[in-house]
């Protein structure tokens, strides 16, 4: 089950990185950041930093590698918050 408020926070973070031809309403839990939302791979680095700031967590390289979709990101955030 997805924590709805975390999902909203994440959407708010991702919004600024979307290219012109992708809108916020295109974001779903299944969205792949690079292949579906067309986010520049360099910007994934910035999304990770924003996620760290927003949730007060630290993400490791392996977490970053696993973070392909919005759902992946939410799962990792929940894990880190429990730890």
């Amino acid at each position, binding site marked *: 089950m997805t924590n709805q408020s975390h999902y909203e926070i994440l959407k708010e973070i991702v919004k*600024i*990185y979307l290219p012109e031809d992708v809108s916020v309403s295109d974001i779903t839990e299944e969205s792949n950041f690079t292949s579906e939302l067309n986010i520049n791979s*360099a*910007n994934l*680095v*910035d999304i990770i*930093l924003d996620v760290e700031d927003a949730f007060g967590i630290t993400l490791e390289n392996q977490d970053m590698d696993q973070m392909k979709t919005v759902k992946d990101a939410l799962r990792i955030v929940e894990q880190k918050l429990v730890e």
Partner: protein
Amino acid sequence: MKGRVVITGLGVCAPNGVGLSNFSHSLSFGISGIRFHQQLADLGFGCQIAGKPEITDLQMDTYFSPLERKGLNSSGLVYGVMAGTDAWGDAGFKPMGKDHPDWDSGIIFGTGILGTDKFRESIYLIDNKKTRRLGSTSVMQTMASGISAYLGGKLGLGNQITTNSSACATGTEAIILGMERIRSGKAKVMLVGSCSDSGPYIWGGFDAMRILPTQYNNDPMRASRPMSATAAGFVPGSGAGALVLESLEHAMARGATIYAEVLGGAVNSGGQRGNGSMTAPNSEAVQRCIKEALSDAKVIYKEVDVINGHLTATSKDAEEIKNWSEALGRSGKDFPYINATKALIGHCLAASGSVEAVASILQFKEGKVFGNNNCSDLHPEILKIVDESKIPLKTISYNSNIIAKASFGFGDVNACVIFKAYKPN
């Protein structure tokens, strides 16, 4: 017509005016952009005044997307993008669509060092073992070619995209390099110019060299005094200037408005020999550079009617005047009109050549020679060479035909470019 290069667009981000109309107004009426900066005082600088373009939040939103603004902390990049995109639009061009670049258009946009504030931010993070917190834009904001790369992406240009660097000759050199590329037939349009960061990390080294004025902290607008007997050192500045250069055929085919023609130019170095050094120009090299530029432009010496000098407001100004006089073989009332833009904006370092070139070219459009500020007490050595009527203290009406612009930089490097009023014939 073949090989002729014209100027079809201008853009500027100067301490006394952001945008062409503001800049032109300030130059016409002698409005200074030199201000006191509390930050420099707080840091214990000897010289606490500087020239810095005033950019509003609204302007930032106009030129940069919210994503581009995120973490943006490179003032030179901001100035350069504003001037560069303005010049491109002024020439009547639009950014390319998302699929293909414009293969015939390129960029030569110089700088000395870029993004010093961003670099400082990065250094603190790295030293605190937080390298991974740098984010994705620290490289592009601090690499010298960040400015040409950024503009290249915004406009979608596919010809040569590069950044030149030759200290305070950078901007003038960029114009010459762009002209040569179009002349050689390798490009049809070149966006050329230069930018320089503002702030203590750029200006500190000059303060340490004790070549900046320290006695005008309470009277900043009188501090930059080129050609004056009381010149006390150059006032540090910052900003960007940009020009769109285009082959005459290309400009005419699309019915572009033409500001002026770039007739020719030359760059050289005194090799830090003779009276040249890392920080001072070799006079023989300066004179050769001026002569070579005129020869490249096929202009005879008496045809030059306006000079926009390098004239930084140091003791070297008189020597520069002497070099112009000897190179052109002209003096007294026969000397061309001469002006020093730095009196109003300070020395914009790597940006100086391009910002002052824009000032030079606006004189064709306005039918004016912009006045000189802060030199009612002309240096006696200068008065021995040039009649004071040739150094107008107020802006005068004058339709110039040939304007020479020169810049000299650390490393004993020189650049001189010759502009001509454009007359269709």
